[in-house]
Every structure is written in C-alpha cells, then in structure tokens.
C-alpha cells in the first residue's frame, strides 16, 4: 500500500477502499484500523479544501 500523500479526492477515496479491504481480512488489527481511519480523515481534509461551487 502506498504511503505517499494524495492530492486528489479520487486517489484518497481509493485508499479508503483499499484499507477497508485490508481490514476485512484482519479486523482486529489495531494498527490497520488506525491507518484505515486515517485515510478517511485524509479524504475529508481534501474534501474540505475543495472550492465551494458558486
């Protein structure tokens, strides 16, 4: 899994899906859970930075 910072929403969303899949295979992995939730937080940061439509 990539650890490079993402700058677009699509890639960030893809990372969330990737982590969801990983967590499904290992749901009690606390580190994985924290990483997964971190990807969701990253996605939300990107969304918050999006310009608001006029």
């Amino acid at each position, binding site marked *: 899994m990539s650890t490079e910072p993402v700058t677009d*929403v699509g890639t*960030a*969303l893809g990372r*969330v*899906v990737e*982590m*969801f899949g990983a*967590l*499904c*295979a290992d*749901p*009690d992995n*606390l580190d994985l*859970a924290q990483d*997964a*939730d971190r*990807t*969701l*937080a990253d*996605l*939300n940061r990107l*969304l*918050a930075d999006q310009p608001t439509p006029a």
Partner: protein
Amino acid sequence: MVNAVTAAEPALAAIRDFTIADNPSSFLAVSEGNSYFTLPGRPGVIVYRPTGRFLVQFGGPFAPPDSYRELLRAFLEFAEERGVTVVGVQLQRADAEIYAEFGFTVNQIGASWARSLGDFSLHGTRFMQLRNKVSRSFRAGLTVVETADESWFPKLREIDEVWLRGKGEHAKPLEYLVGQYGDHMQPHRRMFIGMIDGAPVGYISYSPVFGSRAGWMHDLSRRQPSRVPGIMEAINVTAIERFRSEGVAWLHFGFTPFSGLHAEYELPCHDPGFRLLMGLLWEHGEAVYPAQTQLAYKDKWAPDLTIPEYVGFQRAASVAGFTHIFRAAGAL
C-alpha cells in the same frame, strides 16, 4: 442463565410496543444470537452483537420516549466500562437525530423499500414482464402454498445449502441483519413455499412489521437454480394476493445497503468522506454487497416508499466501525 427464548421475549414485546422509530426490520431484533441491553425497571431494549472492539447495535433503542435517551446513555456507559465502541446500523431517521445529539457521526448507509398494497395491482405495462414471468412459472407446474408446517423446513434447508454452495467455496451464511426461520420465533412469521411436482423449489419468509406502516416484510428467500423463470415472483404475487385479501396495508422489502442515497437525507453531522464511500459502494461495490442486483428485484414491485437508514459512529466516522458491521453480520 437466560436462554435465547427467554431473552428474546422482552425484545419481541419492545418491537411491538415501542414503534416510534418505525423500523421496518425490527423483527430482526428477536433473531437467535443477539445480545440485549436493558435497564432494571425501565421499558425498552437495545439489541447488539459484540465483535472485537465494537458493540454493533441494530437499530436504535426499542423504547418509549421517556426511557429512550436513558437507555442509550446507559448503553454507552456500558460500552465505555468495557473499553469498546458502539456503532449503530439501520438507525431510522428518528434514531439518527437523537444519536446526533449524543455526539455520534451519522451517515445514510442505504434505504429500506416498501409498497403500499391498498390499490396495488399488476395491471399495466409497468408490470408486463413480471406478469409474463409469473405466468410462465405457473404454466411450468409451480404451485404456491402458505404453510406453518415446519416438517417442510429440512427441504428448505437443502435449498439453502445449494444456494450457499453457489456463492463460492468460502461463502458463509449471513446473519444478524438477515432473517431466520425455524427458530422459536417462527410462529410469528409466515412461510410461502413454491412447489413443482410436490417438491419445494423456493420459498419466501415474511416477518411482521409493526408501527405506523404495519404489514409484512419480504424477508429471507431462496430458490433452487432452475430453468423455470419467475418462481420468486410467483410466490410473492401469491403472498400479496393473500395479504390484500386480509387488508394488510404494506409489503416491506427490507434494507438494501448503499441504495437510495440522497444528499437531502443526510444529517448536518454526517461525514462527507464516508458519504463518498457509500456512493462508491453503490456504483462499484458488488463484490462487497450486490446492492444494485438486490434493489433490481425490489424495484420490480414499484415500491412507493423509500426509507433512508443510517449508520451511527460513536465519535468520528470509522472504517473500522464499518468493517465490524460486516463482521457482526457474518460476512467476514
């Protein structure tokens, strides 16, 4: 030690008596395998299953207004004492608004679908394909019976096994958020079986729905792989005719994850990123859950009511919490 029958009876009473949230799937509360949280001397029950670091709650508290928040508060304290986190699934709108008050992040996770039966008919071009399929199944020798005779159930289990094998080597039967039959709650359900040459080829189990849209829910259903089209449709048509003759007002089709998503259904406290994830799983998540296929069957019946349903995360939206819903449902 409280056995399953004893434990489920207060839940049955609660879903019958405390229907403010109008959860159409509330009968799942009495399924075997559920855990229950109650407060001594206070009405209402919370339904949950512990999985790892989470308590996955089904619906909101089935409780009257004067004990709802008290029960929820106590349940959150119960979770905190155990070092676990609550995630609620299939919260109704009324539940969702209260959970938001409690600091939960609440997102739409899908919708339940229902059809009013008062003026329902299969006339018109809208239902032409459906009528044709149903006719073909009856011409192929299908008969449909409603039965309370549980001696048929071993044959239905054989259909279940074939169905499950068709899902793949590692497929497991889902639970918690899907119906059951043949347990101690069976007297409250209705079973319609499709037969060809005296042998079951498919069935639909209907569960009771309480509240302002009382009726029956098209619950667990399976059929044998068959060249005969329209078996499920014919069973459901037969059931609808029976229900209409009894004056039943609503046929519910239950919850489809990731379906019916609309921005106007979201609460202000929703997580935008999680909302995008739900949309993606609707469009491309068939490997996670075949939402579009499932909705296509329900859409055949022209549902005229969409009921948004919600997931509630105790603090921020959580991929881990979402994952544990699947775990509680036996999907992992």
